[in-house]
């Protein structure tokens, strides 16, 4: 056998292992995320070819991609809709791990997953600013105001991200560096550790409806193999790609108006930031920052505290609360854009 054949045989043997019975289709969500991340990286690299991170050129360069570059609108559309879908799938993934209590005995990986979740939020925020249109400017301005209320680290983050208190050349360049330089490296490294730990610790987590202590080893094998799972994943990836292509063609993301500070603030935040907007409309920023910080700390500590029943209840409450806050945020900004 040639080395290539040997490798092929090895992989095939590996994929012929049966999947534990509790591993349902929900477990494809992690892989689905991975596919979307890869798609974002590829389309992002393509967008970097024409984007110019200076306040004078940023808006025009995005318009150039949309109007002049061959199929530029399609590439930007894929990146735009890919980002939206990534956030949806990420919330599903997090929800799956949380409500199936799959974080048990995986405290470190849960924490890394939460960091990755925060990282995607940072990606969404910095990415939203890059077209440098009215909406980008005013959303960046709103976050700047919020950061000014964060005790101790707020000013520090502001200096680091904004390069001062003004939204000028320095700020846009910094957002760009975070979006295409710093965050991708950080995320890929965290993702590598995340996947390594998943691989090392194995797929564990009977659904909450099953009894305690039914970890791997005790879980009976199903008739599905990892090969079947891979095929299902590939099928899902194909569907996703087709779906994103359709969205990009039918709902090509429009570019907002160029920044004009003499025009009123349009205040339209993307849907995924609506709960945050609603939250800060409800409580004062000074208090809200502490409350949000406490919530985040609680999330990190969930696997350590071993309060499964309470955590499930709180989680369900948090989901309902986030939905209500999103509605509040949506109403407070005065209807659709």
């Amino acid at each position, binding site marked *: 056998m040639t080395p290539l054949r040997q490798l092929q045989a090895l992989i095939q043997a590996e994929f012929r292992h049966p999947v534990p019975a509790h591993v349902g289709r929900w477990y494809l969500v992690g892989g689905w995320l991975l596919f979307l991340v890869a798609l974002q990286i590829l389309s992002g690299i*393509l967008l970097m070819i*024409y984007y110019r991170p200076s306040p004078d*050129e940023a808006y025009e*360069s995005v318009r150039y991609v949309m109007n002049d570059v061959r199929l*530029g609108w399609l*590439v930007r559309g894929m990146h735009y809709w890919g980002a939206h879908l990534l956030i949806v799938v990420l919330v599903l993934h997090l929800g799956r791990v949380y409500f199936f209590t799959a974080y048990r005995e995986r405290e470190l990986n849960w924490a890394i997953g939460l960091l990755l979740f925060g990282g995607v939020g940072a990606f969404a925020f910095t990415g939203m600013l890059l077209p440098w249109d009215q909406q980008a400017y005013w959303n960046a301005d709103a976050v700047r105001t919020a950061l000014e209320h964060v005790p101790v680290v707020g000013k520090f983050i502001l200096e680091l991200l904004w390069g001062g208190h003004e939204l000028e050349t320095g700020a846009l360049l910094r957002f760009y560096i975070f979006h295409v330089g710093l965050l991708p490296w950080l995320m890929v490294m965290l993702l590598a550790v995340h996947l390594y730990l998943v691989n090392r610790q194995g797929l564990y987590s009977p659904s909450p409806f099953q009894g305690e202590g039914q970890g791997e080893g005790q879980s009976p094998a199903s008739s599905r193999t990892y090969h079947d799972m891979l095929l299902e994943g590939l099928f899902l990836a194909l569907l996703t790609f087709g779906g994103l292509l359709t969205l990009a063609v039918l709902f090509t993301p429009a570019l907002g108006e160029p920044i004009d*500070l*003499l025009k009123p603030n349009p205040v339209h935040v993307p849907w995924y930031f609506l709960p945050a907007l609603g939250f800060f409309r409800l409580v004062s920023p000074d208090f809200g920052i502490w409350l949000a910080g406490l919530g985040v700390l609680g999330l990190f500590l969930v696997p350590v505290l071993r309060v499964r029943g309470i955590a499930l209840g709180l989680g369900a409450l948090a989901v309902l609360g986030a939905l209500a806050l999103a509605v509040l945020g949506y109403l407070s900004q005065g209807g659709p854009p």
Partner: protein
Amino acid sequence: MNEHERVTISDRRGFLGKLLGGALGLGLLGILSTVVAYIFPPHRRFATPVRQRQRVALLREIPPGKGKQVLFGGEPVWVLHLREGLIALSARCTHQGCIVQWDEQRGTFACPCHGGRFDAHGNVLAGLPTRPLPQLRAEVLQDEVYLARQEER
């Protein structure tokens, strides 16, 4: 199942496999050609736009009676705070393009190169220049001074 049926099934599987492979290959070709078409720059090259409106100073930096030289689109501009409000004039002398200086005592602009003089509104008072200094539009928004282009006089 006789030999003939077995052959037909394997043929059918092979055919379907090839069909699927071909379809995937075509899809990949589509993606690849999109990427190639995108990467090659389009006919119209990107041109840096001229910014219409730009913040140049804080109002408190220019107290009444004073003037401040700022940059607008890379060009030097004088912003004066006169009794009637802010006035923005190109700092380039219309004679040879030297940078004029604001003389606070006399309330005039003086060109250091050939002695041209302009009044606070850019009109020629003395010397070789024949055209007034081009004026720009100055606006104040929340203690910040913005400049915008306006038709030359």
